[in-house]
């Protein structure tokens, strides 16, 4: 965050510098982009972030590893337990904690449920940015069902603090398997409606096809990950590349699209919802109804060593770099935000686009500022 670095060029009267954000309705929170506009065309774009900065990393240096976990929830607040996993995995690696198979499966089910929830929120807000209000309310109602399922087991809805070292905190609620199966049926009934309203809509085609093209090499070099990278044709998915938890045991595909435009990002997220449904259905059959949900974690943590662990968040590679100094508190903990990496491409994609396109591109990047500003 800094002062405006985009001063009007003296003598140039055809360019208008506008300040999009941090109170702009389509910036998904508190992004601020200073934009030079030539008519409707964007000539310059400088993003500013940091309006939601809390310095998680400093706070977490003064907390023990178990106390860090609820703080990580507050980063990507749309996808709940997904944030807890990298810290848990890194510390489990460093301490050599064994995780029971059932605990891994439970974690994976929650992980994928939150991926669906996050993509539903994306779908609603992206369509809201494009001007359609109705899908927003539909998707939020579907997400509500997921949050209800999570609340029944974990006790909280958005920020559940559910994963812990060696497994999960609580056993599943008796209704869990039935609820999840019912929800998947419900979602599969609703997905054709979403396809009619979003993917097949000719206006969405007109707004997104060929808009904000991110070529493959540029995407890799820019360090974007997740659906944005896969929409550029790179089949990089941490779930397949460096599998964790129960992902080695399930079958799923990585949807990729060679186009790299905004529509491809929309399409990839839709396919990911289907793949998540597939993963959860496999796991519902595999997971034993009864069994251990937590491995043995030492009561007094003495973590030493350094470890970078990453998971495939709904926005991309969410990593954590833990440096332990032999106590129960991290010496240094660094979060690599997925949306943080993705948001860097704003100048690449904005410059040369129309102002309306900028809104569509931003919605297709799906930033969440709790994680970007940390």
């Amino acid at each position, binding site marked *: 965050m800094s002062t405006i670095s985009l001063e009007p060029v003296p003598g140039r009267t055809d360019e208008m510098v506008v300040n999009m954000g941090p109170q702009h309705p389509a910036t998904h929170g508190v992004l601020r982009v200073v934009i030079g506009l030539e008519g409707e065309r964007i000539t310059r774009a400088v993003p500013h972030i940091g309006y939601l900065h809390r310095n998680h990393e400093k706070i977490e240096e003064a*907390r023990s590893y*178990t106390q860090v976990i*609820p703080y990580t929830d507050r980063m990507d607040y749309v996808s709940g337990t997904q944030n807890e996993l990298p810290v848990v995995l890194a510390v489990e690696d460093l301490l050599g904690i064994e995780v029971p198979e059932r605990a891994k499966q439970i974690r994976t089910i929650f992980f994928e449920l939150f991926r669906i929830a996050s993509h539903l929120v994306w779908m609603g807000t992206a369509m809201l940015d494009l001007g359609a209000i109705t899908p927003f309310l539909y998707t939020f109602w579907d997400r509500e069902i997921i949050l209800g399922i999570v609340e029944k*087991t974990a*006790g909280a809805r958005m920020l559940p603090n559910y994963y812990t070292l060696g497994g999960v905190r*609580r*056993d599943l609620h008796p209704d869990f398997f039935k609820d999840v199966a019912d929800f998947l049926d419900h979602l599969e009934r609703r997905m054709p409606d979403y396809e009619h309203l979003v993917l*097949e*809509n*000719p206006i969405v085609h007109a707004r997104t096809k060929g808009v904000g093209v991110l070529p493959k090499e540029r995407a890799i070099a820019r360090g974007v990950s997740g659906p944005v990278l896969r929409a550029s044709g790179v089949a990089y998915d941490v779930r397949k590349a460096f599998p964790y938890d129960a992902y080695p045991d399930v079958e799923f595909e990585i949807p990729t699209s060679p186009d790299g435009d905004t529509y491809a990002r929309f399409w990839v997220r839709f396919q990911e919802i289907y793949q998540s449904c597939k993963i959860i259905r496999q796991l519902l059959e595999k997971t034993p109804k009864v069994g251990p949900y937590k491995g043995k974690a030492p009561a007094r943590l003495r973590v030493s060593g350094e470890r970078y662990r990453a998971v495939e968040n709904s926005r991309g590679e969410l990593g954590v770099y833990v440096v332990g100094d032999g106590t129960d508190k991290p010496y240094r903990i660094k979060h690599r935000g997925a949306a943080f990496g993705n948001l860097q491409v704003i100048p690449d994609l904005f410059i040369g686009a129309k102002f309306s396109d900028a809104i569509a591109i931003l919605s297709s990047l799906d930033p969440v500022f709790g994680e970007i500003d940390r």
Partner: protein
Amino acid sequence: MSLLQEVWQAVKAIGTGMATVHKRVYEEPPTEFYPYVLPDLPPVSVQSLALVENEDGSERCIVCLQCERACPAQVITIERHRNPEGKGFLIDRFDIDLANCMYCAACVEACPVSSIVTIQDFEMSTYDLHTLKADIDFLHEQARRSRQWYSPKFGVEIRTEDGRIQKAPPEMQPGGLAELLKPAEEEVDS
């Protein structure tokens, strides 16, 4: 010809979308009437904290300071002194700043006697932030008013009509599936 097809496809897609939207008019909305009807929260839901007393009104808390140590947000303040008669400690002060609390339920995990518990009363809106600094009387009153609460050690507990505290049936418990499945297996065996 392809142009006409394209136009036809676009018109058809818009028509399908409009039909998709309009069919909701004939369905009952899933709205919850919150201020009129309280939502049915699951028993493990973390909405607020309470300090449970025993059935005879004596203090369950043994003032071991585990919750104070476990709290990530450092909102619990406990002062204690040694019990002059008998062993253990007595509470001087037990404060939870519910405005700063992030409801992660780490204190509930840490409590060895299930004295601090999570309850379902979520209506804590107030005009004055300072009223959310809960002291021990407030926490006791919260527990007295609630009919059920949760702690990982004892599971979901309910207060019966005649004031006794007992464990809730397994279908309310997280992990109650094991108990629910057990008799069925026995029946199959016999």
